[in-house]
């Protein structure tokens, strides 16, 4: 089961963020960014709240939320594994790494495991190309990978 992220506490945090940006120019992007951080997603309930508070039509917010790859409508897993598929990583075999992880945790690219623990995503360059191929688990960065490193890294989060 996915974790319940729609807690009262999280909505209070969101409210705080909204108040911070209300009245500033172009508040929508920063609010969505922080909402994504707080909830791990910007589900429609969250968008509704933002719409009411910032006086921006829900349709417009939905349009923005679905445009950018950082925003997701469903909650992501506890650990988001991002395998870089930027050019430097790709030419050094990032595809093999992502295939291996997908097999190891039995999750397709772009999906979250059933227990809500792992989300596997193919990311764009994270700017650590000197260490290609690279993957991230939440904020941790691992570089110079070979497919053999995968098990060891995953075991840290299991």
């Amino acid at each position, binding site marked *: 089961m996915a974790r319940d992220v729609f807690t009262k506490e999280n909505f209070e945090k969101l409210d705080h963020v909204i108040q911070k940006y209300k009245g500033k*120019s*172009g*508040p*929508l*992007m*920063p609010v*969505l*960014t922080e909402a994504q951080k707080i909830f791990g997603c910007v589900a429609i309930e969250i968008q509704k709240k933002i719409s009411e508070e910032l006086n*921006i039509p829900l349709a*417009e917010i939905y*349009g*923005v939320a679905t*445009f*950018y*790859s*950082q*925003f997701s409508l469903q909650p992501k897993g506890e650990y988001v594994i991002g395998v870089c*598929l*930027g*050019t*430097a990583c*790709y*030419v*050094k075999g990032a595809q093999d790494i992502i295939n291996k992880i997908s097999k190891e945790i039995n999750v397709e690219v772009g999906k979250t495991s059933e227990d809500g623990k792992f989300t596997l995503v193919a*990311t*764009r*360059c*994270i*700017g*650590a*190309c*000197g*260490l*290609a191929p*690279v993957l991230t688990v939440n*904020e*941790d*960065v*691992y*570089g110079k990978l070979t497919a053999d490193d995968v098990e060891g890294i995953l075991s840290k989060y299991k």
Partner: protein
Amino acid sequence: MAYKNQVLVCGGTGCTSSSSLKILEKMENLLEQRGIRQDVKMVKTGCFGLCAAGPIVIVYPEGAFYAHVKLEDVEKIVDEHIIGKKIIKDLLYKEAVTEDGEVKSFEEVPFYKKQMRIALEHCGAIGAEDIDDYIELKGYKALEKALTEMTPENVIDEVKRSGLRGRGGGGFPTGLKWEFTYKTEDEQKYVACNADEGDPGAFMDRSILEGDPHCIIEAMAIAGYAVGANQGYVYVRAEYPVAIERLQIAIDKAREAGYLGKNIFGTDFEFDMEIRLGAGAFVCGEETALINSIEGKRGMPRPRPPFPAVKGLWNKPTLLNNVETYANITKIILKGADWFSSIGTEKSKGTKVFALGGKVENTGLVEIPMGTTLREIIFEIGGGIPNGKKFKAVQTGGPSGGCLTEEYLDTPIDYDSLTALGSMMGSGGMIILDEDNCMVDIAKFFLEFTVEESCGKCPPCRIGTKRMLETLEKITEGKGEKGDIEKLEKLAENIKTSALCGLGQTAPNPVLSTIKRFRHEYEAHVNEKRCPSGVCQALLEYKITEDKCKGCTLCAKVCPVNAIKGNVKEAHVIDTNTCIKCGACVAKCPFGAISKQ
């Protein structure tokens, strides 16, 4: 206070991902324990450039360049080097010691020798979170000079005469852009910094923000003074958390110190700035899309003109420059346009930072004077191709660029020479490919990127690139038909001329340039259903060479689908119909008897 030693620890993204911050912490603790904490200045820097050798630690006054430092090595560095005054040769970067065991400073190792650091001058040299370090190296002096000794016209003139061109890809003359924004009259104007760095394979902007954030703040304030803006925005991609954090620290400190805010340097010039986060859309690097994104809309480009210099953020005149472009400004103001324009080629002045990656020994950031050749970068600075493989091509300009082969290696690099050859400077990604890379696969890779990143506003890009990708997929899957290559070429030309923004207009370039230089590879895929580099899975067959096989049975044991048959001590055979081409057997065979063809 006089320090006996200075220790630089790289805090760039590459090195921190291999524990450099733990190294720093451990060293501080040890120095404390030994009672010499006050004698050593510890500096957490940005990227040194040679990320492949990370984590990197440099110990002064000797300038010993330690590479691949491990946590266990820290005690040795403290006790033997800092206290015992003896350089630990085994820990030095391999090229930082001569054959007779003499220690060289890092500037002398081949990777750095041919480089010239202007934009990256302070990266790796100063503490990234320390405004005093920056001030010590003439920080904010350029702003002071501009505000107190120069008129806005003087500043613009200096930038114009320097010959600086935009480092974000297009190469538009920076001074002219400043002048346009200056000349558009309005009470409210903005300056913005493009730190979206969408090119997948480039990280110079990230490194500058991480390693020298104050220089961007200072340059944007100078730009604000020159064009008449009082507010700046830096649009940074959210994937760069360290850069965002350091830039925010720098902005806060600059404001505290009075370099941002009102009455800067006692003048009536007022300027402040703010960070805005990108949210993962390549097209947002395009300037009109970036503006939409900051305003809180979908990051879709709009037709130009009007240019941002006329109608930018909230319809006000806006100056938009790239991070690396700004990084050159403070130096131009301090050292003068003549100095800057004496570096580089006739039409491309100064230096360019490249993110050297892929199949090359020394991956990392490289800054060279314009006019340096590809060969110098790849073989002298980059140290050549690893594992004795053969160089195949160099890809520059990312998804908008193209690739060049062996015969172009002596081309002096500048905006115009690369464009003339159907490649591009772009933002400075430089990916080296060796004989194991399939050019059709690389073209497909870039097209996949474009298709995913196309904003969908105009049909040539939305539909056209998708059709191109489908054709490439067909070819790499062995279903290519006669005429497919020509179809790709025709589609490409149409998209180039009819797409609305730069993304679509340049998207076909990787395909066109690979067809142009590697047509035989495309033909092998289409006509012979063969992938000469052994990359395209569908076209490969795994085979066991009878003479080499010792019948050890290892391969048969790992094969997940039991495709390998054979008796112990007899040659084994792969049933190609059952084989799912997973490659597991190749990795297992101790005798190299299995190959893919």
